[in-house]
């Protein structure tokens, strides 16, 4: 524990935002011997990786509700399991729900179970294995700071060469296939391989989850590979549920940061990044207090960080234009239900209720759902990622009661008529959709909460309410994420860094952006 007094106003590093990336960044900086202060605006740490009460006695992971891609390396480096991270479920299966038919279950190791088209059941394991080989080749891309072109640094060149080498090493057949499919859309790829709508829908859903895409949108094979690549490097063999919800990840990260000596202040919103001599030199709080620092690192989204906290006047006009063009409008909502009992999903054995349940019965179902969002409408038949966390982790609800948490696509940031007016109708629409698979659920609902992208924007302070801070798309990915001029976690303003999901490798609770940003801060200090 650090022995500094709370009145301290001078630190080596100030981290804005106590989300998982902010905490991860703070932990790595503190471990390198820096004095670190984390400033969190809200009353809770964790950002979108948070567990909170939404109805009396019922708690839920209010933002992200599953760990798809937590880095194994990071969990090890920060000893998160020593800091209290425990698992309620690991290597979770995905169950693709069908209308009036048996569901399809996809296991974490490429297993497939279900009554479907025999050809697909045979083809899937080989497909899954190949995708996992691609994912293994691409996974290191996610862990590292992306290279930059046009620098004369050897680290950048080696990094790029490494990526080329890993793709080459896949062997001729795999490399050709990866290069062939890399720019395709998920619809074309999946209809090439499979004919079962349920299987296509489940895989297509992974390609578009948390994006502004439908399965026919260009670049959705890349987003699918991205999700798989991250899962491959996860210590949890795929999708996992921490005990106590996603907030437990943040608590463990906070524990690691504090143990390393970082100081954390809650309810301390930052008003402005202070600039002197064209360098970030600290922050001014809403309270009026100023804190000086050698480096300021923001885990807020790029627009909020640079246009809001730094201000356009400290940036070049062309760079500001690029930032304003960064696509940050969220397209997913979140539904929480407090339930009197476990809802029974038709044709699903009770033990399977703890799995990740997906409502995406076909690619066309997804595409129809997506179509609405293009015209400022919510989906009439939304696609859903449902979890019943209380099946594996009863501590989240009163004894015998249950919680349902669903990511709902698509719910555009702005909806015709306004969310204030449409909220009830949309909630009903989602519950109707769930009730098609779990007919008795309506009678079990004690309370419900819908978080639209506007609510997510408010609660998690992300411009546009986007899960990943900025769309994951080819033009906002890897070397150009979030925008040219702010890659490699640095910004045009010396001493000011980004460490949030708007940076590489993007959203999903990984903590990698925070760690990589910390490394850049340390490397910069060593260089100057």
């Amino acid at each position, binding site marked *: 524990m650090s022995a500094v007094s709370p009145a301290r106003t001078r630190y080596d590093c100030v981290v804005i935002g106590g989300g998982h990336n902010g905490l991860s960044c703070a932990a790595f900086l503190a471990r390198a011997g820096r004095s670190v202060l984390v400033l969190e605006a809200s009353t809770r740490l964790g950002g979108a990786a948070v567990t909170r009460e939404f109805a009396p006695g019922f708690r839920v992971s209010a933002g992200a509700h599953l760990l798809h891609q937590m880095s194994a390396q990071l969990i090890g480096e920060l000893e998160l399991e020593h800091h209290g991270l425990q698992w309620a479920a690991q290597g979770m299966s995905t169950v693709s729900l069908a209308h009036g038919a048996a569901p399809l279950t996809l296991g974490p190791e490429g297993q497939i179970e279900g009554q479907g088209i025999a050809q697909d059941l045979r083809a899937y394991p080989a497909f899954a294995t190949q995708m996992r080989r691609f994912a293994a080749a691409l996974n290191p891309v996610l862990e590292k700071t992306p290279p930059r072109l046009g620098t004369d640094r050897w680290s950048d060149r080696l990094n790029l060469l490494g990526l080329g080498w890993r793709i080459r090493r896949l062997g001729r057949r795999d490399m050709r296939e990866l290069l062939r499919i890399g720019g395709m859309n998920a619809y074309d790829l999946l209809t090439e391989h499979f004919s079962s709508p349920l299987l296509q829908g489940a895989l297509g859903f992974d390609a578009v989850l948390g994006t502004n895409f439908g399965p026919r949108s260009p670049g959705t094979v890349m987003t699918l590979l991205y999700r798989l690549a991250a899962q491959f490097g996860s210590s949890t063999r795929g999708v996992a549920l921490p005990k106590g919800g996603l907030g437990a990840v943040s608590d463990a990260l906070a524990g690691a940061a504090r143990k390393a000596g970082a100081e954390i202040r809650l309810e301390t919103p930052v008003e402005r990044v202070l600039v002197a001599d064209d360098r970030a030199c600290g922050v001014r709080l809403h309270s009026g207090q100023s804190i000086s620092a050698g480096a300021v690192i923001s885990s807020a989204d790029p627009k909020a960080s640079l246009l809001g906290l730094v201000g*356009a006047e400290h940036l*070049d*006009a062309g*760079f*500001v*234009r690029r930032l304003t063009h960064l696509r940050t409008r969220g397209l997913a909502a979140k539904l929480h239900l407090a339930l009197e009992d476990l809802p029974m999903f038709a044709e699903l054995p009770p033990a399977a209720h703890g799995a990740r349940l997906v409502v995406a019965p076909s690619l066309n179902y997804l595409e129809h759902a997506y179509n609405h969002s293009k015209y400022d409408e919510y989906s009439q038949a939304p696609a859903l990622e449902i979890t019943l966390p209380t099946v594996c982790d009863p501590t989240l609800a009163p004894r015998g009661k249950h919680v349902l948490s669903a990511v709902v696509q698509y719910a555009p940031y702005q909806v015709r008529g306004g969310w204030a007016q449409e909220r009830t109708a949309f909630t009903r629409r989602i519950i109707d959709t769930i009730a098609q698979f779990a007919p008795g659920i309506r009678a079990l609902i004690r309370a419900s909460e819908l978080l639209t992208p506007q609510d997510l924007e408010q609660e998690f302070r992300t411009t546009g309410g986007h899960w990943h801070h900025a769309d994951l798309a080819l033009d906002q990915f890897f070397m150009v994420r979030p925008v040219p001029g702010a890659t490699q976690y640095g910004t045009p303003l010396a001493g000011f860094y980004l460490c949030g999901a708007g940076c590489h490798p993007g959203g999903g609770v990984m903590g990698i952006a925070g760690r990589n940003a910390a490394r850049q801060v340390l490397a910069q200090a060593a260089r100057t």
Partner: protein
Amino acid sequence: MNESNNPTSHFRQPLLLTPFHDRARALSQVDSFVPWAGYTTVDVFTTMEQEYFAIRNATTLYDLTPMVKYRIAGPDANRFLNRLVTRDLRKLKVSRVSYCVWCNDAGNIIDDGTVFRLAENEYRLCTAERQLDWLLDSAIGFDVQISEVTAEIAALAMQGPTSCAVLKQVGLAGVERLKPFEFGNFEVAGLPIMVSRTGFTGDLGYELWVDPQQANALWDALMSAGRSRGIRAIGSRALNIARIEAGFLLPNVDFMSAEGSIRIGTGRSPLELGLGWLVDFGKGHFTGRRALLEQQRRGLRRQLVGLDIAGSKPALNALLYTDRTGRKEVGSISSAVWSPTCKRNIALAMVEAPHFEVGAMVWAEVYLNRELVWERRMCRAQVVEKPFFAPERRRLTPPADF
């Protein structure tokens, strides 16, 4: 109003007519018009030489209306402009004008122009090229309104040694007290008129800004008052000689506007264009500042300089070499003219390091057309100080009565 200014018939005559067009048309002897920023303007009225000598020996009227004008107003107008341009505008006073350049992120010049502080929170920006898009991008994050007012203001440049005397004669009491880069509001026969002591000739001169409705009345009053002092309408060709003598740059002639260039490496920074005196690194952030600091740290690879070239043939578009063998190229000429006043063969040229220091010698490859027989000549050229012509009278306040 002219038929061509009717927005529904623009396709009939794509070029607009300025409010002075009827007067210009009547005076044009050689029917030589050129397009400028969407307007028809005069290239030459009589002969270029006659018009040029009027600039240096009498006074001249040049229709400046097509110059693009923006009104910039709002609580953040000063902060906006100070972030836009490389010069420190924080202390620009009301009724003062500042000559400025602005750059893109890479520190390359987009355009140059003049900023008039009309009131505490109101400015006019006059530029050669349209660039509302860049101004609006630059306005993100600032509480400022920007609108183009080019067609709402008729403008005349009145340049030459007798210009002040003519203005006084036409009734502009106190105009002689205007210092360079100062402006004031006056009346001509009851018409309100704004006069700034600015210009593009490097000579004593003014620019007059009026309501387009009063354009003809102003023109007539000046022409009649100036008759005894040799007043003459001029076109852009005569002006071009004067501006080269004064060392002034033209966008897309002496440098490519950065946002308009396509090829990599064709942009030019103010440091490279010899406009370092317009760049204030101490005023706080402005677009391009970091790139310019980096360029300064690395040292300039080229610079725009004045050349004094042997012989009398203008070295138009000539390539420059280290010696007369022409083996090693070190730059090229963007503007060249025989200066009738200096009696020197002068040019503006972009020259690579280290040959841009004053006193350095290079060789210009000049092509001569002798009755359709082309000759190539290597001419010695020396890097010299700019401007080539800078008479005392351009700064003297009050100006002498000629």
